[in-house]
């Protein structure tokens, strides 16, 4: 049987002009698409054949400039890289095309990325080092050291992760996955001399790595497979290793797991909250704790279950721990 190479697809396209519209609206186009086409081809066809006023960013067409990032059915994509047939397979024959962030739309699919660039700039996304004005040889980095960057330098600043991050959406201060991936990229570079400054920047409450909600969306959405949350985890580790972790609810929350596992094998949920929040901070959780207690959801300290063979766990914690707080 001959493979289907053409399909009809209905596109709902987000339209908004901040100079003339109060509210956004959607235009609908039904087009026959072929298996070779990517989303950018569709945007071009709509603009060239149906409505010349449709606005979107495009440039390299090779998945490297990062400007054509938009969302299709909620999924952040590069328009030039994302094949229609793959989207149809995932979402069916009705596709909704929106800007990366509808609340930042200026015109149609074009958004104001100022917050993205501002946050990116904060982490000093460049190499700082002692430069010999008249070098006699290259500044070589061994393959082993180069591997430490992981895939962090693949980032093309498209903003797909930033505008898919729920923490960015709610907390204006949160720097977001792309800025963190960039902070990691330069802090992990053996030639860099400002690594610790950058770690201090990412160690702040509200704006720093501690407010990550761990939804893994940045890893899922990244069209260049940068895996930003892996770099966020690395920054956490580097902050502890550098000994600059502050004594606060976020750091104690991470450390508290090690304490609890050492004592019970399992996590002592109540004790984790007390240890993280402190004896006074914990009081704000009392109303919920009482409700939970009344439903049999709180295990009292003397009834705390323990893992069998706890001695093994304790021995491993002693011999395998790599950091101190």
């Amino acid at each position: 049987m001959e493979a289907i190479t053409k399909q009809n697809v209905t596109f709902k396209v987000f339209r908004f002009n901040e100079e003339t519209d109060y509210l956004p609206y959607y235009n609908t186009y039904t087009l026959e698409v072929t298996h070779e086409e990517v989303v950018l081809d569709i945007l071009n066809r709509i603009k060239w054949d149906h409505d010349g006023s449709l606005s979107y960013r495009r440039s390299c067409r090779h998945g490297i400039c990062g400007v054509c990032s938009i969302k299709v059915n909620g999924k952040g994509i590069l328009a030039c890289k994302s094949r229609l047939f793959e989207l149809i397979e995932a979402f069916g024959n009705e596709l909704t095309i929106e800007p990366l962030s509808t609340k930042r739309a200026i015109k149609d699919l074009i958004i104001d990325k100022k917050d993205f660039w501002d946050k990116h700039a904060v982490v000093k996304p460049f190499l700082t080092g002692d430069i010999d004005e008249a070098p006699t040889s290259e500044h070589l980095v061994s393959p082993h050291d180069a591997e430490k960057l992981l895939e962090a330098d693949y980032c093309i600043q498209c903003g797909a992760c930033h505008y898919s991050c729920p923490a960015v959406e709610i907390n204006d201060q949160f720097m977001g996955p792309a800025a963190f991936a960039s902070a990691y990229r330069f802090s992990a570079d053996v030639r860099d001399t400002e690594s610790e400054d950058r770690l201090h920047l990412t160690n702040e409450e509200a704006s720093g790595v501690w407010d990550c909600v761990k939804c893994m969306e940045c890893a899922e959405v990244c069209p260049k497979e940068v895996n930003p949350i892996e770099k966020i985890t690395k920054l956490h580790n580097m902050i502890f290793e550098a000994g600059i972790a502050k004594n606060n609810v976020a750091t104690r929350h991470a450390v508290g797991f090690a304490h609890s596992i050492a004592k019970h094998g399992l996590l002592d949920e109540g004790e984790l909250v007390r240890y993280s929040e402190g004896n006074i901070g914990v009081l704000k959780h009392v109303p919920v704790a009482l409700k939970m207690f009344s439903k049999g959801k709180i295990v009292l300290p003397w009834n705390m279950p323990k893992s069998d063979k706890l001695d093994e766990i304790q021995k491993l914690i002693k011999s395998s721990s790599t950091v101190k707080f």
Partner: protein
Amino acid sequence: MKELKYALFTGCTAKESTPEQMMSTLAVAKKLGIELIELTEASCCGASHLQDYDDFLSLVLNARNIAYAEKHGLTMVTICNTCQLNTAMTKHRLDHNADLKAKVNAKLAEVGLEYKGTSQVTHFLYAIIDDFGLDKIKEMVVKPLSQFNIAPFYGCHNIRPSELQNETHQNKENAYNPTSLDDLIIACGGVNVDYNEKNKCCGFHAELQAPHTAAVLTGNAVAGAMDANADWMVTPCPLCHLKLDTQTHHASVAIGRDVSLPVLHMQQMIGLALGCTASELGLKHHVTKVNFV
């Protein structure tokens, strides 16, 4: 069909704040004829936070848990999305990095254990879908949930990153358009509700560090389900359950709107459809009252 048998990694909440999840897991396994061997030696998985502090320690502890499943020669079944992610992530990293595996095994050898990589790790939801089969569930339903609009809440750590998650799934899941839990609702005779937040974050992991962010996410999730006319929500993750069931007061304040819906564990939903009693499923342990049973 050959009788299904798994090594059960309960995680911590099933032993503490969500006793109903443990009860309903065992009740449903019994109904389905699935044998679960509890890994009583297992430790906490670190819940996506221990690795922020000490990544290597987290790997060693998770590898130890898997090693116990390997001793039984069984696939490990998890009943918590975060246990699933941490365990599967450990397995993936050790199976793809011989040096790291050797380092971890050098530690495990101190307690006479070895991580071999011979056991798969899968969440109970996918064990049911891939190994047991939804058609068979459908045949076993005695009390279909046809009177209810049910909002699936997938939980991040079962669906993302999909490349890792799908390594063990026969029925691949798309993180932007997941279907497993919807299919399970339908198999139980219920009406699945579609809403934007079904594959979004509940905020659980930032509850202490970023309480406002966490509360807004919880509020958005419940509001999304309510606006889609859901009678109740269902989730495969006990951490999502804790957030959605016990934190709706903070969530309502954060989003400026009263939100609240009963939230069932996936196991409780199956149990209801298969005729388990409310007490077998621990429905009295919910903070937001399960008002329809």
